[in-house]
């Protein structure tokens, strides 16, 4: 007998309209409860957490509710001597948090409040001979870090400081039989990783190297009967994977290959109508991470009450335009 499809059922009582005000209140409150258990336990990713929350607020046109000065001061305190940023004060520097820091600074148009030259120095020091990037000095290699490096440099307009051709070659060496990409050469395709690699290739203008028919087909097959998208075959749907698949499809010009109405319905059903915020799946606990990706997904799907999102940087399109970044999507 065949294996049953893994999916969720959306109940009739699930939210069907966008609860923008609740989401804004949820995010605004999240950052203010600094001695909350949840908040303290996630300190190891604080910088990214702040990027998720602030970008979500900006997409909802409510960024002014957040304390800009406090955020910038925090970011300044997270920059290390080497130029990289840690997730929080006293935490070790890493490309993941360096990108989040630069994204927040760009959101606030405040790049000049940190040492940009040092950031460039940090990122270039992490590129290896094969074009790959270490995430930090300890040497883990992953295509996520190739994206972080390139996205970061693009935001500060310093792409020519690394060997772009080699970086592209490394990303291509992680391409798979299904047209997707994995963490390292040999690794299985995964939508999060695909988003990173497709985004990286978009930033450096090499999208023609992707087999868009093959990859687009694999990506649109991520949509399940519930409307939600999964990250790999035979997995459950999830709001964050919905974003990664959707943004990748958008970048390669195949967004219309999935059923938009069904996906909208799924994302809306992942809202919590009591607390605000989005969860990974209907009925689960919400968090800022899925809240950003829920909103960003709805924006790509054409919801006009949310600002237009840039599919590569997951930031408002107007911010990317202001940063002077031009990209040709397919």
């Amino acid at each position, binding site marked *: 007998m065949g294996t049953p*499809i893994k999916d969720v059922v959306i109940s009739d009582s699930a939210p069907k309209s966008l609860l923008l005000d609740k989401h804004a209140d949820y995010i605004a409150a999240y950052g203010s409860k600094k001695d909350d258990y949840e908040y303290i336990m996630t300190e*190891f990713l604080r910088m990214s957490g702040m990027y998720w929350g602030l970008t979500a607020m900006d997409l909802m046109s409510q960024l002014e509710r957040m304390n800009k000065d406090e955020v910038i001061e925090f970011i300044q305190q997270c920059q290390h001597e080497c130029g990289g940023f840690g997730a929080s004060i006293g935490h070790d520097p890493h490309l993941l948090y360096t990108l989040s820091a630069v994204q927040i600074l760009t959101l606030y148009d405040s790049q000049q409040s940190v040492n940009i030259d040092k950031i460039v120095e940090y990122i270039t020091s992490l590129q290896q001979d094969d074009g790959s990037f270490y995430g930090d000095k300890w040497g883990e290699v992953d295509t996520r870090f190739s994206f972080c490096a390139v996205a970061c440099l693009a935001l500060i307009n310093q792409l020519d400081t690394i060997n772009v051709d080699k970086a592209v070659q490394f990303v291509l060496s992680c391409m798979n*039989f299904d047209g997707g990409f994995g963490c390292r050469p040999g690794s299985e395709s995964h939508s999060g990783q695909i988003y990173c690699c497709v985004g990286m290739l978009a930033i450096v203008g090499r999208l*023609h190297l992707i087999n868009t028919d093959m990859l687009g087909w694999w990506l649109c*097959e991520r949509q399940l009967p519930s409307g939600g998208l999964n990250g*790999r075959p035979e997995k459950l749907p999830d709001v964050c994977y919905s974003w990664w698949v959707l943004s990748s499809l958008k970048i390669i010009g195949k967004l219309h290959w999935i059923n938009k109405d069904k996906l909208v319905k799924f994302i809306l059903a992942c809202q919590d109508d009591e607390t605000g915020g989005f969860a990974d*799946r209907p009925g689960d606990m919400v*968090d800022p991470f899925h809240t950003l990706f829920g909103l960003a997904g709805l924006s790509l799907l054409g919801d006009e009450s949310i600002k237009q999102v840039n599919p590569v940087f997951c930031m408002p399109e107007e911010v990317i335009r202001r940063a002077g970044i031009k990209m040709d999507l397919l």
Partner: protein
Amino acid sequence: MHGRVKVKTTAEQQEAKRKEREKKLKIYTAATEKIFEKRKNKEYDEEALKITGEILAVNSDFSTFWNYRKEIFLNMTENKPENEMIEIFKGELQFLESCLRTNPKSYGVWNHRCFIMETMPKPDWKKELELCNLFLEYDERNFHCWDYRRFVVKKANISPEEELEFTTNKICNNFSNFSSWHYRSKLLPLIYPDENSTIGVEENILIKEYETVQNAFFTDPDDQSAWFYHRWLLGRGKIKTGVNCMLIDRTYQMLMINTTQPVMISPSTCEIDVLLNGERVEGTWRTHKQQTDVYSSIWIFKSTEDESWIPMHEDAEVAMAVVGEDWGSSDSVQINSTQTVAWNLTHEEQGLRFRDELSAATTDTLQRELDSIQELYELEPENKWVLLTIVSLMKALNPKQYANDIEIFLSKLITIDSSRINYYWDLRSKCLIENYLEELDFSTRVISLQNQNISCLVHPELFSMVVKIDLSNNKLDSVKGFSCFQCAVDIHVDGNQIKDLEELSFLHGLKLLSIKDNNISSLESLQPLGKTSILKLYLFGNPVVENIDELEVKKIIPSLHNFDGHMM
């Protein structure tokens, strides 16, 4: 953040939880503070291992603490005798295994395990392979574990043959195992390399793989893993870089080339010399969108020495030479004294232009596959994977001969797989356009594809030399790709669903656009036409026309002489 179900709790339960968390938090905060303090004091001792261990056991993504642990191990290795260290390292491996049992998908834990194995004296790689077997037993799709396995395999010198055997066993246990199929796609080209095959695997091995994968989908025809793998086996061709068309135009004093795949023409990547009657001409290359330093299939050369570098009323020869690369080296085009335009088309053998998309297998193999999948179709007439695979095979074998069958199967797919209808519509458009282009006599410079329900334009770069294009009464919702129509004078796209005209701004020679009955809804949408020298515009039947002011239109498009049949 994943898979935490929200449970309704009473106020009493909430209070109890709050108190418990408060207690936990106190211990947690005290511990983290102590760790930072100890690290600052460069204390690399057992106590540090103990406290970081307690935190990491509950919060395995706290990478700074893993880093501290790494420092501790590096420091201890320098200061303790080897036999003592081996025991400490072994303890670490045990600790990591217990972390993995609670959190098998933690990047931090797997990464730290790599570090420990690479740092410890006399690592037991075989035992690590057993650990991988165990964790893949728990979850055969855990990609962290698969990646760790590939790391171990390299270190332990395990042969790809043994690993292939492992995937065979995994697949026999459960066909629906995408991770194993994926691994096979990486192992086969290593074990049975064949440069002539587009997927890099010997033909006789391919035939065996077809059997294995058929076994899988005959057992469970809904299992997508096997179908994706099957698609890979069918292969896809590599397109060789070359020039499809080279065109010179006296009116615009330009040389335009159209390449088989995008190239970047620039001094730092690929330079192309242009020769007029054997003499080198200085000039610049830009894409059809006026860009430089990008990859594109269409490039336009203009001289910087002489605005009218292609002499009027004289025979001439323009040649191009790619510097340092082996494509397009001998292309040239002759223009005689009376011509305004001349071109040189590369003649593709009929029916082969698009065939190399799916061509790893020989025709015999493809035919055999088609036969057996048609058998499955008899049993499973409503199965979308079966239908789509038949379409792919027919398209690979003979798209013209099977055109009707392909149409029927795709229509069926559109009705049974409602989430992906636009994928099938686009695939259908691709088949139709490719079949049309295969038979087209490009030298007529006319393309006429009306009433075909075309939903997207494929290979628009091949339209670059066409003067008259009629795509009326299709399902196009944008003019995506139209910027390639560099020679277009007349464009007819009546009766589509087009919303924007963005790409038309690049069509310098456009004289007539007929876009009746589309979805143009605002005057701003007409702005791209203002950059052309268009004379006639038919806009009737678009929402924007309802209360349009002709003067406004003229303001946006100053060159316009005739709007919806009225002289302006």
